[in-house]
């Protein structure tokens, strides 16, 4: 799983982390039962405050995508609802499409073309 933090991105740092974890769960690169990096370690590696990572993890827990367990840390939920997984994948797709300069209408057309 790759997590990139861009200080020039208008989105808050915690949201950048959250989106990338969502995308990793969505595309299957993070499987159910896998542990996310410990918050302190991740914060140190990407140069953010540990509370920023904890906020992202909290948001993912609220969405039912991960569980926060004492000692074991953040673990991908065994039963991430399929709809949530699809939503995570869609969100990742939208992010990538925006990065490539596609407009919302073009993104919708892209998906409609696959139906």
């Amino acid at each position, binding site marked *: 799983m790759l997590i990139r933090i861009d200080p020039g991105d208008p989105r808050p740092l915690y949201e950048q982390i959250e989106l990338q974890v969502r995308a990793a769960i969505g595309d299957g690169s993070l499987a159910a039962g896998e542990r996310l990096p410990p918050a302190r370690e991740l914060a140190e*590696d990407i*140069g953010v405050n540990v509370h920023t990572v904890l906020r992202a993890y909290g948001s993912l827990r609220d969405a039912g995508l991960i569980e926060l367990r004492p000692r074991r840390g953040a673990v991908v939920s065994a039963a991430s609802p399929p709809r949530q997984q699809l939503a995570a994948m869609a969100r990742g797709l939208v992010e990538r499409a925006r990065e490539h300069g596609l407009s919302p209408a073009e993104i919708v057309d892209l998906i409609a073309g696959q139906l």
Partner: protein
Amino acid sequence: MSDGTAGITGMSGGTHRGVAAALVCGLESALLATMVAVPAALWSRLPPRLADHFTLAGTANGDLPRLVTFLALGVMAVPGAALFLAGWLAGRRGGSGGRPRPGRTPLVTGAGVMAVGLMAVGLFLTAMATGSVLLVSVVNLGHGGLRSDSVGPGAMPLLVGGSALVTAFAGLVLRRFGGFGAADGEAPPVRLGLRAGERAVWSGRARAPWALPAGTLLIAAGVLTRVLATPWGLTIVLVLTGAATFCFTSVRVTVAARGVSVAYGMLGPRLTRFRLSRIASAAAVELRSFSFGYRGSLLVFGSAAVILRRGPALRLTLRDGKTFTVTVDDAATGAALLNDLIGAL
């Protein structure tokens, strides 16, 4: 070796590889020649029956006719010579088994490693057989057959140790002259393309495919021993072995600004760590079934590796010329990030 065809014998690897291969081939030939020459030279001075079997303490406890003894020892050398030949041929043709698949980095170290591994095992077996011939010849020289001959308790360790030394020498020659190391003509490092100020971390995992069933089986067997009321010692051994199987058969690799760390999967004790300043470049390679000739962790001799399965692996080329390879999923992303981080130093 980006075309996947070069081997350890210098087809495109330069003079040094040819010299290394010639030296090692010469060593194998010399061992085989010694096996024939020594009995031939001493034939008339050896008794008709030779003490050829010894207890662990080194006392002779069996004998055979002279010809049969040397033929039997000669047969022992056949698997060694065959493995050596297989390794040499694998090295000549690159050993990687054909063309690289499109979109994948061909394995550049594994072919050489497999060839060298086969040659090393072959050399070891040949050295053992030759050592046995020498030992039997010397012990029986001038005697009249089976008697209270003793090779002494140090003979077996000497035989194994000497063979290991011969093998280690050959390994060092091949390593020094290009057996294991990074290959010639590698593709330039792939980069992720981090923007200025952007920070990133990547982590990937790999698990030995047999670990889950094997660990489960061992722990289930441990539980069964309680049902059968066998001694506790057996239960403890089975459960601990099962737990160790789970713990030490998966790895987590992390690439970040502080370097590359490799930790065992479940409990996470760190296996090794490389600071960015030690790494020259990184690449994703595709390991085939027998690319490395072994599965496990080997952190010695410079060309260290943690090999748990076939498939994608991250290979680091260190600034001192050594390499480190670890099997991990999505190694391409890890390698690309690492090349970015190194480039930013």
